[in-house]
């Protein structure tokens, strides 16, 4: 079965590309989750000068084209760049770094938006029942869990679908840094459309599953409207 798939996709290394895509998505989403959730919640909780500017920059970064991030990370990681000595260019680690820059703002921005809306009432509630500050923050985290899952799933979806940064930083090296999206890009450049479409369908199915999971987390909220 696997060899059949591999043969069907000719020489682009489709199976490796799927593996790389998943490894990349899980790693970068995990790191971005820790950074993004923390940053999003801190941003909501604390007031400081230029906070609105920080929020606006975060929102801008949520929509920044990945290829721009890719270029910046490329310049950082290249042999003659400031981090060149670590030899991270054209490696999965380098791609993870680039994707963390792309996904963290998505997660922190989403978490911040929900926290700004919901955290104050959770904190007020916690005070009316006598919770300590630590218990209060844990409760905020727990009460926002479905929104946080949603943010994480959005980040994951962005990771598997992203092509610009992984192409630049990863270099689309067969069997090492080639992802499903860059494999599709390569298949297209060779004029091999049917295989590109097949790989695209697999990616679509993955995105669909991710979206279904996201929907599942959102479903609880239907009850939340009290009329």
């Amino acid at each position, binding site marked *: 079965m696997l060899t059949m798939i591999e043969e069907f996709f000719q020489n682009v290394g489709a199976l490796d590309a799927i593996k790389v895509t998943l490894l990349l998505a899980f790693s970068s989403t995990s790191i971005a989750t820790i950074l993004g959730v923390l940053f999003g919640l801190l941003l909501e909780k604390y007031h400081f000068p230029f906070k609105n500017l920080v929020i606006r920059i975060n929102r801008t970064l949520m929509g920044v084209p990945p290829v721009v991030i890719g270029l910046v990370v490329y310049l950082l990681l290249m042999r003659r760049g400031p981090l060149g000595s670590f030899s991270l260019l054209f490696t999965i680690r380098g791609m993870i770094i680039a994707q963390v820059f792309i996904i963290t703002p998505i997660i922190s921005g989403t978490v911040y938006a929900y926290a700004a809306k919901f955290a104050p009432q959770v904190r007020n509630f916690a005070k*009316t029942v006598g919770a300590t500050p630590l218990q209060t923050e844990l409760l905020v985290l727990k009460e926002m869990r479905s929104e946080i899952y949603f943010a994480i799933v959005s980040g994951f979806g962005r990771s598997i679908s992203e092509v610009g940064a992984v192409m630049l930083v990863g270099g689309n090296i067969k069997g090492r840094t080639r992802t499903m999206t860059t494999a599709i890009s390569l298949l297209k450049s060779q004029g091999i459309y049917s295989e590109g479409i097949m790989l695209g369908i697999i990616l679509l199915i993955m995105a669909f599953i991710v979206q279904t999971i996201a929907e599942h987390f959102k479903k*609880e909220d239907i009850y*939340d409207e009290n009329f």
Partner: protein
Amino acid sequence: MKISNLKLEVSEFKMDIADLNIERGFKHAFVGPNGSGKSTLAKAIMQIIPNHSVDLEGLSSIDIMLAPQRPYLLHDTVMNNILYPLKIRNRKVNNDELISLLDMFNLTDKKNQYARSLSSGEQQKVSLIRCLLCHPVYLIIDEALSNLDSESVMRIEEIIKNDKETTWILISHQLTQVLNICDKVHFLDKGKLIESGDTEEVLLKSKNEIIQNYMSNQVIKVRE
């Protein structure tokens, strides 16, 4: 509980209370027209007014609880909502009491339901039960009976009357309820404390025009 020199300003609304004494062992009521600051005072006592803190002379926030008109329910089951305040206090629930309260408010069948799917009256009940189980030193009931059926209201009134442990503070427009239950009334208007004292002294015998006006309006309403 003694509050002195409470000064607040929350979006246009100003509150200035020089001296308020909520004695332990009595049942209190905050009374006053809409916008007089009753709920704001309750929030101030709970320390949930942004950028303000009120000095409660040794009382810690764990001693005071508030059941608001529109309670916040956790994204969880009825049971976990009820047990949350005990859990954070590291206290075990009194099972007999829990069973009887659930039974009293017809929530026994719904204890494993998602709390936010309950009706607003039932949500108020959940909020009340979780406060009652904690037996706090002070418990503020801020219009928290407004959506309850009359039978449930009667039952909770019984509980309040017979309770000797908690110092209750009722915020209510139901004057018969206040007259029936409360020993002390603190009358508020436009963010100021107009009069404090025994219930009947303040509500029925006051010489203050504002209170007299308020009372006559309420009586007319009752008659209508």
